């Protein structure tokens, strides 16, 4: 028999960006969230453009000033401007968040795809391994890593990345399994396409479709968890304006200078919330729940 008479269209699976690019009504909250994210990204790339003061310059005549027009978010015990410190801390906080998410997604992708494609034995072994990782409270696992390797930004990334990986791995495994059982895969097998090609062209593009959303939501959660570690004094070292470290540094002054504790938290929550809003919006679009 000559080469197959029936050929599948070159690409059955949708391209992620094609789906998102469909024009449609974008709710106001998504614009707001995107603005917040853009602000923090700009802070991370070029903090000097958005700062009102230096993040590190001390001013002992203006210590513990409450929020005012000259110091938008007040000043700390050394007279440093809190707003400027938050802006300059964005780079480290976002890098840790992105780094942890990248690590977590890489591990999850490897385990999830292997479990989804590897057959019963591999799937069983990986699923049991994930069950075990699930039994560790995330923060406790992170603290175990910090104990063994010492507190540092690298440990913070590894701890948060590995701590969040099992959840994503489980989701990816489920996606791969359901794509594998789908009708179009059965059709491709029936047409005699080689398995690696089916995996590459049909299973993976469909299974990894929700990954964009997962990663978006994941960055927000990673920033929250990483800041939590730093808040306990087990992340970036004190002079750093990383958001969690700012929270940790402000604790001693909570009765006298509430803004030192509240404002960095506002940054963390604003970022995490914006990322969540955008993530959910992307999810709605990808699943076609919003009519264009």
């Amino acid at each position, binding site marked *: 028999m000559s080469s197959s008479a029936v050929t599948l269209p070159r690409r059955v699976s949708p391209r992620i960006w094609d789906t998102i690019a469909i024009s449609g009504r974008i709710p106001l909250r998504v614009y707001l969230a995107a603005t917040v994210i853009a602000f923090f990204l700009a802070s991370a790339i070029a903090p000097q453009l958005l700062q009102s003061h230096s993040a590190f310059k001390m001013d002992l005549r203006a210590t513990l000033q409450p929020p005012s027009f000259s110091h938008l978010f007040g000043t700390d015990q050394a007279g440093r401007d809190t707003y400027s410190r938050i802006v300059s801390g964005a780079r480290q906080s976002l890098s840790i968040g992105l780094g942890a998410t990248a690590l977590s997604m890489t591990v999850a992708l490897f385990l999830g795809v292997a479990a989804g494609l590897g057959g019963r034995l591999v799937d069983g072994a990986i699923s*049991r*391994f994930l*069950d*075990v*990782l*699930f*039994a*560790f*409270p*995330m*923060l*406790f*696992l992170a*603290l*175990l*890593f*910090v*104990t*063994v*390797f*010492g*507190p540092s930004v690298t440990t913070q990334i590894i701890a948060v990345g590995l701590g969040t990986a099992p959840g994503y791995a489980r989701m990816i495994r489920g996606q791969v399994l359901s794509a594998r059982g789908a009708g179009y895969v059965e059709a491709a097998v029936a047409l005699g396409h080689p398995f690696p090609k089916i995996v590459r062209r049909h299973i993976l593009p469909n299974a990894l479709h929700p990954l964009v959303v997962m990663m978006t939501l994941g960055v*927000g959660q990673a920033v*929250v968890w990483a*800041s*939590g570690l730093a*808040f*306990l*004094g*087990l992340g970036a070292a004190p002079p750093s304006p990383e958001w969690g470290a700012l*929270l940790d540094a402000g604790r001693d002054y*909570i*009765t006298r200078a*509430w803004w030192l*504790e*509240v404002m960095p*938290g506002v940054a*963390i*929550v604003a970022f*995490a*919330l914006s990322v*969540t*809003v955008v993530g*959910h919006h992307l999810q709605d679009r990808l699943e076609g729940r919003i009519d264009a």
Partner: protein
Amino acid sequence: MSMTLAARIRALPFGGASRHVAWFLRRAIGGAAVLWAVTTFTFVVQSLMPGDRALLIINMAAGNITNPSQAEIDAVNAKYGFADPIAVQYLNYLWRLLHGDFGVSYQLHRPVIEIVGAQILPTIVLAFSALLTAWFIAIVMTVVLAGRANPWARFASGLQIVMATMPPYWIGTILLVTFAVFLRIFPVEGKNSLIGLVLPTVALAIPLAGFIGLVIQQEFVRVLEQPFVTSSRARGMGDFGVRLRHVLRHAVLPGVTLSGWAVGSLFSGAVLVESVFARQGIGGILVGATSARDVPLVTGIVVISAGIYVLANVLVDRAYLIIDPRIKLA
């Protein structure tokens, strides 16, 4: 009312007792396997610790950086078994764990199990009261508002997303600043009094309430469209009664599963919240042990909390049988 006591006991839903025993045994074996893997994993991670651990222990005891002789180092190595081959260390570790011996803290020189035992109760109380509070908030929001076509319902589901995103340590900080610093209502340093439990509980419950609310609300809306809901309404049952008695029972199931998984995040959150409120509990020792690099104490706490997680999930599976009698023992 004329049934004898024996007949009543027989009528209790424990018909096939042997099936339950078999189920329990299977779960116990599965749980033990997970715990074995947990201990093995922690053993592997802690054995990767860089640097000379004997030196670390000596410095910790001395409180500063010392320059001990080789004999002193050898003595510590012998005492903690660091000189043994790794396989021997591993088997010794497992053997001691089987006897409930989690080792001795490098820093406090007391058995880990004793330290944890003295501090774990306030943490469990906090986690449990937060779980109950979260369920209460989620159920009230869902029963009153889910699936309604009014602006409040849309506001509620938006609020749940916001709640689920907020880190408990920041909610705790806001509550602490508001109530203790501005209003001076609650004690700033929450001791373990009942009133000192309120703010930490709320801080820990809010994100979880958001998560549970989102999950059960989705299921609630789906169940509202089922035929038995229409038939209940047709029988003249009030709207609130239908929601509370029929729909909620179905909708809580995914939330129950989530609660089992949430045990881990409750513990994580509890550590952070305890730190915010300077509350007594496992958080303080865990953070102290981590920064001092007290390996036995940290691994002990990690293994014990994993054990609680495994136990909680067995209980969740039992709760399933009670809530949904259609589910059979598998």
